[in-house]
């Protein structure tokens, strides 16, 4: 059981609602689900698509072959028709599309007419379509009816029952007119509901679970989802969410809040991050913890606002004037995003440094299914000096030289001690200095003392697949899902594995897991990156001297597809 549904249409036609509803129903029914959207930088019109793949086993990427195609626009037929599987079916409304298809693989369903006749309003055509898809799948309508009831609660009984009728009409029509559809199983075997979560939501949830209390940002695709999620929980968790006037303000607000004693975060995309770079350097100089979610999209400049790329690893690593340490995580899945966001907050606070969570539009917007996220050990280490404990100190210097190299960080106002910091080079108290001796000690404290323990915190890369691979596919960040599926694809015929890096900087040591040995022993070690220049391969060379045998790069603004990557690897294998 491994099916893909694709809904296509113009922006504003509602494919997102159809897709979200179906995906939720499938996950609730116990399937593993993976969804991926392709959309343009416009609000209405154009051509968008929503892919839902579901399966009885774990899935981490889309697949090209479509089992059910629901085009709400004619372009959907032209562009995606050829991807319809042999056993696939195309559900469409010939009246709305003003096009009549022939052949056994298409089913003309009068979505609009059924909506009018059963629901009383054309607006319910999408509900009819959802009902029809469920009909084709042989699934019942209970789940859908529940969702309808929840969604339209505020709109009243009337609307709810109209929608329920519309759904039923689509369902029946499909069942009656699609005889060979009966073969589709109606339920995943275990019957246990799955959760469905996007990368953005996972970061948001991770931030909340880290005790984040302040989030300031300026809207920018694909990072806005994080802000929206955190905002939706602001009342419940006591989080101040502030829309800043620009990204410079956003990071400086976060630093102000952090200095004042609460955990603070901001999020943006490359263009906004460019504007935050001076603030990043300020965080470093004042040793003020901050977490930054950087959702990459294709650049330079505005680029492709709604598409994906891994083009800013080098930038994230070197951003900011002057020399200072930082943490960079690039989660490969929502699950990793959740846990690494927590780790980012912890390390930022522990070492008083900035931590960057590097994602991209692909990870941000795809949704993944899990039985659950592991919440064991969800607790917060408070590294700040507060109240009694702070007041009890005989003396206090914000930037004191200490045995551990980490200076005590008191919360201003909680004691009579003053908390002073400065973007200029400063002394232990935090006041401006000009002398060479203090400078040297401060650089050592901020940089050299912190890096070695910080590096020890970094987990090694993940190995998936064969333990002594002949072919090793390396990746970082959002390519996790697709590489994993490609490994599964080739596993039956070769000793293949994935080496995935999600904790990127400080670059993982080899003590715990000698991944360099693995790379060197593989016959083919291919670095797969969703960018043009191979930034991770370059970092690997810089940090370890190791050069990959091959590189696969994609820079058209689209994520890798399983099929595409399979082909690229086949080409390398020769």
């Amino acid at each position, binding site marked *: 059981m491994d099916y893909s549904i694709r809904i296509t249409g113009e922006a504003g036609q509602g494919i997102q609602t159809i897709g979200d509803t179906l995906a939720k129903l499938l996950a609730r029914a116990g399937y593993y689900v993976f969804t991926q959207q392709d959309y343009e930088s416009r609000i209405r019109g154009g051509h968008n698509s929503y892919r839902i793949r579901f399966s009885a086993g774990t899935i981490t990427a889309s697949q090209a072959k479509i089992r059910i195609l629901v085009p709400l626009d004619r372009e959907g037929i032209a562009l995606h028709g050829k991807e319809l599987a042999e056993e696939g079916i195309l559900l469409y409304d010939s009246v709305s599309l003003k096009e009549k298809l022939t052949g056994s693989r298409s089913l003309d369903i009068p979505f609009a007419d059924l909506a009018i006749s059963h629901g009383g309003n054309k607006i319910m055509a999408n509900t009819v379509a959802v009902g029809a898809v469920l009909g084709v799948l042989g699934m019942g309508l209970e789940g859908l009816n529940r969702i309808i009831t929840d969604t339209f609660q505020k709109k009243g009984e009337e609307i709810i029952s109209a929608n329920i009728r519309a759904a039923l009409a689509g369902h029946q029509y499909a069942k009656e007119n699609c005889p060979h559809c009966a073969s589709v199983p109606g339920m995943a075997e275990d019957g246990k509901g799955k959760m469905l979560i996007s990368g953005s939501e996972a970061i948001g949830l991770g931030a909340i679970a880290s005790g984040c209390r302040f989030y300031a940002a300026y809207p920018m695709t694909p990072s806005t989802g994080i802000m929206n999620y955190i905002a939706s929980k602001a009342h419940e968790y006591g989080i101040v969410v502030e829309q800043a006037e620009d990204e410079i303000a956003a990071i400086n607000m976060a630093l102000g809040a952090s*200095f004042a004693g609460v955990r603070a975060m901001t999020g943006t995309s490359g263009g906004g991050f460019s504007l935050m770079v001076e603030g990043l350097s300020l965080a470093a100089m004042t040793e003020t913890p901050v977490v930054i979610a950087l959702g990459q999209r294709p650049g330079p400049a505005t680029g492709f606002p709604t598409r994906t790329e891994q083009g800013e690893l080098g930038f994230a690593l070197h951003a900011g004037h002057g020399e200072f340490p930082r943490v960079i995580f690039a989660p490969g899945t929502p699950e990793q995003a959740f846990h690494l966001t927590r780790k980012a907050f912890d390390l930022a606070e522990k070492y008083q440094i900035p931590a960057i969570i590097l994602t991209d539009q692909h990870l941000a917007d795809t949704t993944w299914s899990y039985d659950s996220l592991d919440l064991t050990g969800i607790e917060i280490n408070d590294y700040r000096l507060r109240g009694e404990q702070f007041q009890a100190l005989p003396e206090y210097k914000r930037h004191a030289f200490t045995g551990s190299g980490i200076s005590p960080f008191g919360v201003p*106002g909680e004691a009579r001690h003053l908390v002073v910091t400065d973007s200029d080079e400063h002394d232990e108290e935090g006041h401006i200095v000009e002398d060479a001796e203090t400078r040297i000690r401060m650089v050592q404290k901020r940089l050299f003392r912190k890096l070695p323990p910080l590096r020890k915190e970094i987990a090694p890369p993940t190995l998936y697949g064969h333990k002594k691979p002949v072919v090793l596919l390396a990746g970082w960040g959002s390519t996790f899902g697709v590489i994993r599926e490609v490994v599964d694809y080739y596993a039956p015929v070769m000793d293949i594995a994935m080496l995935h890096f999600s904790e990127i900087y400080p670059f993982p040591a080899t003590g715990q897991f000698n991944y360099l040995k693995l790379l060197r022993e593989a016959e083919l070690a291919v670095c797969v990156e969703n960018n043009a220049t191979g930034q991770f391969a370059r970092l690997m060379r810089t940090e370890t001297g190791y050069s990959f045998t091959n590189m696969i790069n994609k820079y058209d603004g689209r994520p890798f597809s399983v099929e595409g990557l399979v082909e690229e690897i086949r080409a390398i294998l020769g």
Partner: protein
Amino acid sequence: MPSLDDYKGQTPAWCPGCGNFGILKAFKDAMVEMGKEPHEFTIVSGIGQAGKFPHYLKCNTFNGLHGRTLPVATGMRLANSGMTVIAVAGDGDCYGEGGNHLIHAIRRNINVKLFVHDNQVYGLTKGQASPTSTETGKGGMKTKNQPFGILSEQLNPIALAVALDCSFVARGFAGDMAHLKEIIKEAAGHTGFSLVDILQPCVSFNKINTFEWYKERVYRIEAGYNPEDRITAFAKALEWGERIPLGVIYRNNRPTLEEQIPLIAETPLVKQSVDLSRIAATMKDFY
């Protein structure tokens, strides 16, 4: 009760005779008179001569970037609405590099007190024009980096603030410390974003707007003046040149940002404990 001794900071690196000394004195006096203890407030300052201010007294201090005092101060207030937060900036700092933050801090009405040391010049970087410098053609100075003179119209920060409905707008003068002290106290006592533009002679680089120049022109606003009328305030704000009004020019009682966020209306965020017990329940939303 704090005394002036409690406020003794580092030795100022300002030029002898600089107007900043007057502001420092007035500020310390105001704090002492208000009974404010050094640990009870935080100064966020920028970069420039004004930016060095907090080092020369005693208080919690975040001496940040050039132009970025207000966002830092805003974040602080939102995180700790129990803390008095004061922003100290130069005219270049706040009206030049940081102009956008000023507009939006005023709109937010975050309860921050902004004191601008307005010397109508870039002091620390040696005498370039600032937004409040007078046009060369209108008697303003010449600068090294502007071969055609200062051509941009002199910014009127008071008029700008009135136009933005700023909660409290006043002008002080470093040469009238007694009056300045009272304005500082009034701003500190006001609930809402407060802009105090302080005329501050720069003896090294501004040879035009000197102590004498200001002294000949400034006057304390007459008793009957109503700072709550916006049109009147705008007209008053436009006064500059022959006569320069000192005092509170505009004031209103808009609610502050902090007051409007129910979450922190009672208890500052930093005093609220974090409760993660509901995380598992929150995760259930995703099913």
